[in-house]
């Protein structure tokens, strides 16, 4: 069975919390953007889930724990875990509870302003058990491109990879309304075998099979076989990559790109190799006990020399 990449929006709100969309409107807008899956993550409630039952868009049901000390996305728990008593010093116990309920956890916009500008928006939880987290938003706050906060989030994600945690990068639009949307084709691509389902979305996040993009579809294979999230042996490997603008051109025809280079990123966020974006393959020596992520750089219509997409990591044994 072949592996496909599906454009998804993993962080959505409706009028069941403070979004402007009904569930039906959210589904309609997602389809207009050719998204194949969304996560319904209203603040502190799952009351919208029943309206998502008959959707022909794939919906992974979740909740955004909008606590006083950080916002945490919890997807597909089979029972309610109380968000209200989550404090910085007990977050490990709380994520254990989510895990026991078969849910997965993601960090939302870790460097957003906190209280009172955006209540609880800044990640202040003291996490020891990072293994309880499947993903972290590295492009977020409705600004899915490289800015100060997203740069900090990427750096933080790298530091977790350095510590040996296999955690996926995601983009979360924190989608509340249409007004003010930037980079409207930005999304998280999830790798799934065959047709997309909610279970496969969850599995992709658990396995780290994600690509974060400002709009273009960008992905790579290693030796024609390995993909993001896989482990491979140290040594010389062949990377084959692909840049596909077909969805982006339909969804956001006003945007244009000049793709310049790919950067192979490893420990400490160091760029270990740079390759022209005009190529389609390159060789790289991968070292033992290192992770490797690919970044696509170039010009967008709005910004020059910027990060356009980044992949989750492959891991070298």
């Amino acid at each position, binding site marked *: 069975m072949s592996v496909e990449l599906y454009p998804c929006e993993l962080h959505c709100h409706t009028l069941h919390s403070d979004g402007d969309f009904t569930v039906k409107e959210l589904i309609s807008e997602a389809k207009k953007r050719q998204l194949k899956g969304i996560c319904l993550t209203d603040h*502190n*409630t799952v*009351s919208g889930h029943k309206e998502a039952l008959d959707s022909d868009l794939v919906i992974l049901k979740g909740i955004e724990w909008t606590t*006083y000390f950080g916002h945490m996305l919890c997807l597909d728990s089979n029972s309610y875990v109380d968000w*209200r008593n989550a404090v910085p010093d007990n977050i490990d116990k709380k994520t254990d509870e989510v895990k026991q309920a078969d849910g997965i956890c993601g960090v939302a916009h870790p460097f957003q302003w906190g209280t009172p*500008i955006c209540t609880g928006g800044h990640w202040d939880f003291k996490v020891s058990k990072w293994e309880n987290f499947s993903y972290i938003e590295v492009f977020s706050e409705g600004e899915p491109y490289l800015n100060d906060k997203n740069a900090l989030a990427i750096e933080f994600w790298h530091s977790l990879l350095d510590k040996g945690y296999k955690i996926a990068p995601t983009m979360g639009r924190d989608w509340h309304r249409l007004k003010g949307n930037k980079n409207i084709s930005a999304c998280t691509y999830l790798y799934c075998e065959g047709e997309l389902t909610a279970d496969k979305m969850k599995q992709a996040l658990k396995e780290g099979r994600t690509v974060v993009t400002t709009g273009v579809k960008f992905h790579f294979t290693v030796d024609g076989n390995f993909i993001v999230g896989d482990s491979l042996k140290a040594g010389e490997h062949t990377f084959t990559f692909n840049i596909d603008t077909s969805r982006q051109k339909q969804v956001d025809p006003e945007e244009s790109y000049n793709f310049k280079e790919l950067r192979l990123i490893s420990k400490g966020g160091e760029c270990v190799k740079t390759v022209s974006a005009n190529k389609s393959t390159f060789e790289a020596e991968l070292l033992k006990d290192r992770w490797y992520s690919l970044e696509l750089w170039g010009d967008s219509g709005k910004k020059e020399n910027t990060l356009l997409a980044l992949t989750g990591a492959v891991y070298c044994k």
Partner: protein
Amino acid sequence: MKLVAEFEKNLTPLDEKTNVALPFIVADDFDFLRFTASYSPKRLTDRERAKELILLNLTRDNGNEKDTEKWESFLPLVNLVTLSLDDEKGYRGACHRQAEYQELFLSESEASPGLLQGKITKGKWKAVLNVHAIVTENCTYKLKIEGGDKNER
């Protein structure tokens, strides 16, 4: 309709980032509960105090000079108190939105957005004020809970 419970609670910045439980008893067979929730004031109108709080926030969360120069873009600062609900069996949802006045409805077949529909069981319930931000010196929260049967809707 019958009055089930009524609360008036004064909140201060010391209550920020806490949950204030307002327990009540449902003693009758109701088909629905109606909640009228409000708090005041919503906005911090003292501009100097707002600037002080914003700059503290930005400094604490690693803001730079570029961020502090545009402190006014973060106005107005507001109080945010949301309401969540529990019956004896567990969570009945939360209404997390900015509105400082909300009229909410809950029955076996219907619920206002945020709340989880289900039987209005007799017993101990709990409304919980989730105090996300108090930026004014005082903030008064009022909650009225009424119950009724389906003929009274």
